[in-house]
């Protein structure tokens, strides 16, 4: 047997590269990996497109005729709601995908490789973020085709874009965290149906909060999704609501909700990813 020198980690290629540069590089490589799956498994996009489209058709052409919102056409009232709902449902989408991905052997391979674990989880978030963004784009284009007519100034468009990006990032992190906490994609669907589905309806998503009964109204006034929907509606249609602080200041409320979600979910997700693991 030939002499085998005591190995040192310095022998690892790329070990000399600074940690932040490696983190960015590894995250980009792993994100690209996730994105390459989209055209190969296009059915994964169905979750983020079909569901909102069904809601659009249902509310626009079935329930819509019975709903009257003062000062705005129901079509223009509905689309901001659908966009907000899509964002919120992104939690379910990201959660289902993550709970599925985490059962794949390849994640174990990444974890046992000399790459930062933060980059693995960041890439998961980035991949899901892009998927949600693609889904949302399809929903918006579908809305425009059906005759949604947003009244957006350039300033408002930029503000809306920034807030939407922040919202998607926060909800994606939340979904990734939930996806790692639950044991299976089915369980994640269950959590989505029990928690997120009601929150999306107990908000100003489809009908004005003011007309709700006392109990749902109280919930809707403080439901984060109301702030989300209020933001989209306020910026794109100039329609404002009232009844609680967050409904009067939806943009600020939404930003605060998102920062709160990020502050809570990011450390928990990282901790969860490393739990029972060395290093």
């Amino acid at each position: 047997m030939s002499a085998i020198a005591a190995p040192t980690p310095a022998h690892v290629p790329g070990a000399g590269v600074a940690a932040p540069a490696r983190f960015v590089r590894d995250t980009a490589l792993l994100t690209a990996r996730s994105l390459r799956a989209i055209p190969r498994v296009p059915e994964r996009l169905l979750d983020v497109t079909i569901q909102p489209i069904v809601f659009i058709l249902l509310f626009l052409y079935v329930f819509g005729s019975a709903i009257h919102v003062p000062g705005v056409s129901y079509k223009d009232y509905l689309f901001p709601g659908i966009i907000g709902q899509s964002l919120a449902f992104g939690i379910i989408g990201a959660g289902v995908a993550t709970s599925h991905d985490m059962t794949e052997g390849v994640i174990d391979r990444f974890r046992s490789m000399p790459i930062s674990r933060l980059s693995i989880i960041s890439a998961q978030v980035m991949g899901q973020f892009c998927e949600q963004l693609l889904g949302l784009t399809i929903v918006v284009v579908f809305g425009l085709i059906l005759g949604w007519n947003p009244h957006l100034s350039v300033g408002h468009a930029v503000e809306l874009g920034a807030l939407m990006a922040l919202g998607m990032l926060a909800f994606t992190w939340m979904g990734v965290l939930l996806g790692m906490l639950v044991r299976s994609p089915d369980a994640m669907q269950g959590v989505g149906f029990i928690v997120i589905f009601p929150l999306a309806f107990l908000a100003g998503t489809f009908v004005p909060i003011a007309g709700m009964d006392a109990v749902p109204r109280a919930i809707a006034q403080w439901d984060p999704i109301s702030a989300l929907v209020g933001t989209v509606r306020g910026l794109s249609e100039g329609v404002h609501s009232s009844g609680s602080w967050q409904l009067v200041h939806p943009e600020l409320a939404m930003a605060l909700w998102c920062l709160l979600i990020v502050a809570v979910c990011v450390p928990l997700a990282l901790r969860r990813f490393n739990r029972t693991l060395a290093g």
Partner: protein
Amino acid sequence: MSQITAIETEGLTKRFGAFTAVADLDLRVDTGTVVSLLGPNGAGKTTTVRMLATLLRPDAGCARVAGYDVVREAVQVRALIALTGQFAALDKHLTARENLVLMARLRGRGRREAARVADRLIERFSIGEFRNRLVKNLSGGERRRVDLAAGLIDTPHVLVLDEPTTGLDPRSRQVVWSTIRSLVDDGVTLLLTTQYLEEADALADRVVLIDRGREVAAGTPAQLKTQVGAQRVDVIAADGTEFTRVSELLRGRFETSESAEQRTVSVAAPDEAENLAEVAAVVAQAGIQVDEVALRRPTLDDAFLALTGHVAHEAPHTDSRFDESEPTEVAA
């Protein structure tokens, strides 16, 4: 010459709730050798290698890879160890080649260098034919080859193969074996887990037999086989009555063990084919109805029976949470 121990564990222990998966395991793999961890499902093999690969944290004891502690120096350990699991750790939506390029890039290679490394591995592991097929469309044997290749981007200090041939058909198993042999010839240090005595025998310098997380025997394959005994002749009786007859008949003349449930009497056959002829003649003379009389190699069950005095599958792993075939449960 600075020989350092490739893998060394002391009192390594892992519990899942009340269940102890690995109990006080002392394991040593010298650099340049091939050690096989042999045991039935649920013996703690996968849990052990997952601790070595820094995927699970030990509850007690310690483990070092090339002198680095798997908990305190996990980053160094990850640079030195490559783990190939019983479930191919590949991205199934990428092609074989894309997987190899990705792994090479994650190990610090530039785009062009990664492609070169991937193509070299494709040639070495005869992956060429299916290099552009998506991993999800590959057969089990093809996946294992790609998986092995992915573990060898940087020649690892220690390669850990977790049940590399479980679930493969005999032909694919031969291909994987010859791949592993060529690695061994190159001097790779290898820790191999397996359920097959035959596999440990074919590949390992040293075999550690484990059961319920504990080491029950260790030695060279030759030493173990001497203890286990040679091949056996199995006589499977046509029905219960015939089983009783054949059992009484053979017990008087040979060294036997038997299983009433399987209506099988097993006879030690140190002289192999000669013993087969003897047993067949005795059975035929007595006019006993049998389904089968056959010579077979000792199995893991025989080894356990011989070395521990009990059969291997006693361990009551009723809770699927502890089933090693679901490593994701403990990883999540």
